[in-house]
């Protein structure tokens, strides 16, 4: 391949170097020319390579290795691979009542957290979209819980939801009502955990929705109000359809995140076991993977559980994608 046929590179090189007539000058020019050409061709790959190399080691390889691990028996005492067992680990996990329970818990906590979260976030965003005084202050205020780490959040809420001396139960008691056994009753524990998740993420999502709402051309509202649409009607027939891509985005990301909840159920357990309650009432599937894989060192079973959960997440994410598209399309009409 000749280095002289590429006009753009040639132009660059001539522009860069003052014209020189002598032989050493020419040689230097050619060398520089070549270097510049390699620079141009290789640099793009060089710049993206750190990402791909590191991702291969800490992202792709572990994911594929999970699949491999799930097909083998593991000798827990010596950390060595045992025999190939095919789908035995999958069979074990899928018939394990604890894993089944964890899947139900995961889904239940996800529903209790994501649905109210999206509804409230959209409502808060709609209010922030009005011409508020000190709008920056309001936006920052709704984001406040986001700076509290999930660990801190669950410990704080743990003091509110404590079965004996928790603030909520003491208040219920003072009002003559029955105390709620937050750490014992399955659905109440899910509600408590969903509450913490919602507390931390609602304001964050509200800001994402707000950004989408601010991009809606104001003329559309103008036209709608000329047609006699009130504020509520405008919200449903203008705002909602216009923020549809954001809606889909938020719902997909909170599906992927919400089905992997770990910190809250792990630390909500105030006994040293920390396996999601004495009867696994609020053990999520991610917690199951941790307990099986890291604490009990059943690598195969934990990996099989991880793949099952992965498929569940993908399925529910696709399902939510379809539902959101369908629901927001209807509201255009």
């Amino acid at each position, binding site marked *: 391949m000749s280095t002289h046929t590429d006009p753009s590179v040639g132009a660059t090189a001539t522009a860069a170097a003052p014209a020189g007539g002598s032989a050493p000058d020419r040689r230097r020019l050619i060398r520089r020319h070549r270097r510049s050409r390699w620079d141009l061709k290789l640099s793009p790959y060089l710049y*993206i390579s750190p990402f791909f190399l*590191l991702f291969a*080691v800490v992202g792709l390889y572990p994911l594929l290795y999970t699949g491999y691990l799930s097909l083998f028996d593991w000798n827990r005492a010596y950390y060595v691979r045992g025999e190939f067992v095919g789908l035995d680990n999958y069979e074990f996990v899928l018939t394990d009542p604890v894993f089944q329970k964890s899947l139900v818990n995961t889904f239940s906590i996800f529903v209790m957290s994501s649905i109210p979260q999206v509804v409230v976030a959209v409502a808060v965003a709609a209010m922030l979209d009005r011409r508020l005084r000190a709008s920056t202050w309001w936006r920052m205020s709704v984001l406040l819980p986001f700076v509290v*780490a999930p660990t801190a959040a669950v410990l*704080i809420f743990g003091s509110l939801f404590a079965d004996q001396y928790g603030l909520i139960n003491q208040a219920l008691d003072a009002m003559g009502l029955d105390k709620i056994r937050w750490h014992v009753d399955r659905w109440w524990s899910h509600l408590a955990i969903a509450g913490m998740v919602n507390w931390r993420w609602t304001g964050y999502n509200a800001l994402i929705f707000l*950004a989408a709402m601010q991009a809606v051309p104001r003329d559309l509202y*103008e036209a709608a109000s000329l047609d006699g649409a009130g504020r509520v009607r405008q919200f449903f027939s203008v705002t909602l359809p216009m923020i549809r891509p954001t809606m889909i985005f938020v719902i997909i990301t909170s599906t992927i995140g919400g089905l992997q909840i770990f910190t809250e159920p792990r630390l909500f357990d105030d*006994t040293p076991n920390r396996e999601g309650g004495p009867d696994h009432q609020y053990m999520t599937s991610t917690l199951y993977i941790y307990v099986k894989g890291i604490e009990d060192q059943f690598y195969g079973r*934990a*990996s099989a559980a991880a793949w099952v959960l992965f498929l569940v997440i993908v399925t529910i994410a696709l399902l939510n994608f379809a539902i959101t598209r369908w629901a927001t399309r209807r509201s255009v009409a």
Partner: protein
Amino acid sequence: MSAPVLSGRTRSRRTSDRPGFLVYGLLVAFVVGSALPLYWSFVIGSHTKETADDFPPPILPGGHFLDNARRVLDTVEFWQALANSLIVSTVCATSVVVFSTLAGYSFAKLRFRGRNAGMAFVVMTMAVPTQLAIVPLFIVMRDLGLLDTLAAVALPTMVTAFGVFFMRQYLSDAVPDELIEAARMDGCTMIRTFWTVAVPAGRPAMAILFLFTFMQVWTDYMWPLVALQKTETLQIALDRLALTGQGQTTDYALVLAGTGMATIPLLALFVLAGRQLVAGIMQGAVKG
């Protein structure tokens, strides 16, 4: 449709858009609800263990925060954990910003074979729940002999697909192609062009990416729990703190003083850079 009329109407609508008491009332309720748990933790964290269980509870902060803080320092290696969190978060955030800016610039502005496929791969990996791969990641770290080191904590977050995506989006608008061409005409090498054109233009996005990665690593609990044994980050220290006093009722004055101490650094960051955080989320940031 005539433009002047329209814009006049828009203005009149916007002045009538001033919200009433109902909106302010609801927003106040939401903000109070957001702040209350945090306030509660500071109240309880500054009272004695005995007062913490009282009902009705104290509603103002007490004078025992320093006592509680001393007990926290006696129970867990707080300063060490704080330093560890600071190191890991800073290293990860720096590395993510550097590598994402490089890759994002390449994807946004340079022409090369495989560019579209590469970018599609990045977008796809954003949706992959890598958390599920903790077991093999644990094995990798063990085989590398990195378990219980800060390197093991940092390594998985040295690059993020989101970072590459975010920087690509920003740089493709923020850097004019003419500027790159001009720099090349002046004889700049590729890396010099990157340094003198892309980096200055990308600075606001880089700052936001740094903030978000820093917070993401700082607040992470699951991976440090897997990768560490004796070493502690702040979140692991909180985990240990919550386990003290087992068998009796939890000592919430101690625990909540600890959560307060662990939250103060991020609160300070929030006060200093809250505007940038809001701007970053509104520019289309994704959950960490």
